[in-house]
């Protein structure tokens, strides 16, 4: 399904704001998500991603600005909107004392679907989530990855137009993450609009057509992964490890070779469009690096550049 330019956006936020007491979690953001898109909110912890997701999910009234989801106002039409959304919350909300299948059956009832329809969809969804063999086992002993897949399967029981995923793969092992990405990719291909938050850059690059980077409640960058890299980073990055305990001493000696130099405890990052050429000059200057690595710039470089390397807890 390709979005038509005249399609009304599924999500339209203008100056959307959320305060908790004196704390401003979301500070006047503008967002538009169109049908068929995979849209990502990126940002460090505390950037305001989850607060934004909760407002869109109609479980947190905005403090300011306007928000329309599926063309409706979450404050007055929350229940109607939620009936057409699929929600995968950051922390699972499964009933662990029920079986895998029962979790879907009960959840389907919340949407007022007839039992026969739910039963049929449950079987399909369990197949989709690769959980058919565990269908009649209790949820509690399942692995984190299986619970996550069940949460996603369950969120699809009402055939949502818009699937909201809040950090869908956080805490999963690589196999489980890839299995989940595969499922999400299939959903995207089948035309479901995806909105997800993540702090995994590879996840954003794999899944998102378009994304915003949030920091401190604001949107600091917006575009496709490729656009963001070209706008906020150079094409390549040269990583230099030198025989020194303090790489900062060498910053001045290479700063003319790159548009930007970043000093890390164990290496220098030179942001440049031609990493090999820069590496050659470094050698010619007799700096004798222990190792050089030229790589393409990634979304992670953009992310760290925009939101800083300081740890936020």
């Amino acid at each position, binding site marked *: 399904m390709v979005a038509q330019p005249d399609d009304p956006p599924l999500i339209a936020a203008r100056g959307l704001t959320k305060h908790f007491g004196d704390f401003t979690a979301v500070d006047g953001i503008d967002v538009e998500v169109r049908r068929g898109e995979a849209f990502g909110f990126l940002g460090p912890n505390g950037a305001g991603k989850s607060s934004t997701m909760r407002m869109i999910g109609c479980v947190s009234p905005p403090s300011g600005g306007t928000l329309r989801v599926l063309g409706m106002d979450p404050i007055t039409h929350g229940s109607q909107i939620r009936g057409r*959304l699929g929600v995968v919350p950051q922390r699972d909300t499964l*009933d662990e004392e029920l079986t895998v299948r029962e979790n879907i059956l009960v959840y389907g009832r*919340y949407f007022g679907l007839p039992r026969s329809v739910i039963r049929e969809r449950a079987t399909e969804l369990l197949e989709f989530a690769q959980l058919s063999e565990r269908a009649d086992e209790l949820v509690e002993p399942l692995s984190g990855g299986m619970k996550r897949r069940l949460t996603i399967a369950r969120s699809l029981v009402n055939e949502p137009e818009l699937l909201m995923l809040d950090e869908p793969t956080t805490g999963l092992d690589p196999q489980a993450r890839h299995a989940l990405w595969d499922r999400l990719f299939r959903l995207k291909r089948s035309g479901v609009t995806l909105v997800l938050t993540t702090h995994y850059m590879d996840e954003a690059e794999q899944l998102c057509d378009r994304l915003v980077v949030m920091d401190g409640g604001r949107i600091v960058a917006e575009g496709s992964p490729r656009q963001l890299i070209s706008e906020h980073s150079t094409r390549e990055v040269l990583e230099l490890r030198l025989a020194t305990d303090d790489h900062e001493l060498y910053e001045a000696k290479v700063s003319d070779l790159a548009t930007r130099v970043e000093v890390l405890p164990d290496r220098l990052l030179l942001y440049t469009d031609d990493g090999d050429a820069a590496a050659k000059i470094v050698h010619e200057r007799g700096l004798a690096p222990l190792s050089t690595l030229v790589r393409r710039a990634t979304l992670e470089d953009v992310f760290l550049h925009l939101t800083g390397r300081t740890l936020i807890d």
Partner: protein
Amino acid sequence: MWNRALAHWLAHYRRVWRGTIISGILQPLFFLLAMGMGLGTLVDAGTSGGIEGVDYLLFLAPGILAAQAMQTAVFESTFPVLGAIKWQRQYHAMLAAPLGIPDIVLGHLVFVMMRVAMTSTIFVTIATLFGAITSWWVLLALPVAVLTGLAFAAPVVAFAARQRNESGFNMLFRFIVLPMFLFSGTFFPVEQLPTALELIARITPLWHAVELCRGLALETMTLAGAAAHVAYLVVLAGIGIQLALMSVRKRLIL
């Protein structure tokens, strides 16, 4: 849409009912046997001959009925409510669907009332077989037990939704539920208490519930008396529901 929330708790109960049998059915029967038959033999052999001329077993059974309604309701409104907010988070799942706060709270309260109706019916049946209940009027005590359950469950849901962890529940059980169980007329008439304590006992909801159940089971209840007790419980339930809605909303809608 509250029936959709109820559907969840019924499905859940189908998985966990075994664990509720001990506390729900055996415990009141143990009290009936130990107190009614053990202690009761002594009471009935005493100078007054039973309590106000009534066999102790007959006096006790409706008291246990009311107390059991309280205990079932309080238990079902503490851990499951905090769990649905904090641990398993089933309330959040409901809220991600079209259900609203009133549906979530009402659905859960109706489930608690069904649980109370269930344990009460089983208790009354068994107590009747034991000869501890002899009047058909006890059939009216069943809806009273359910109303008692609601009158306790609703404010306790409000309390539970404000807890950060389960330590508050221990306080609730130790300092509210247990004293009420012991001193609100379940085991002996509150007139036996010192006057100050008797007055306190008479304003507890359990005393009103016990009086109602006992008055019906022993066929001594007057219409005016019954109306006053019912009114008390209805008002408590009404206030409790309002508080429960406020607390759950405050906790879930950030």
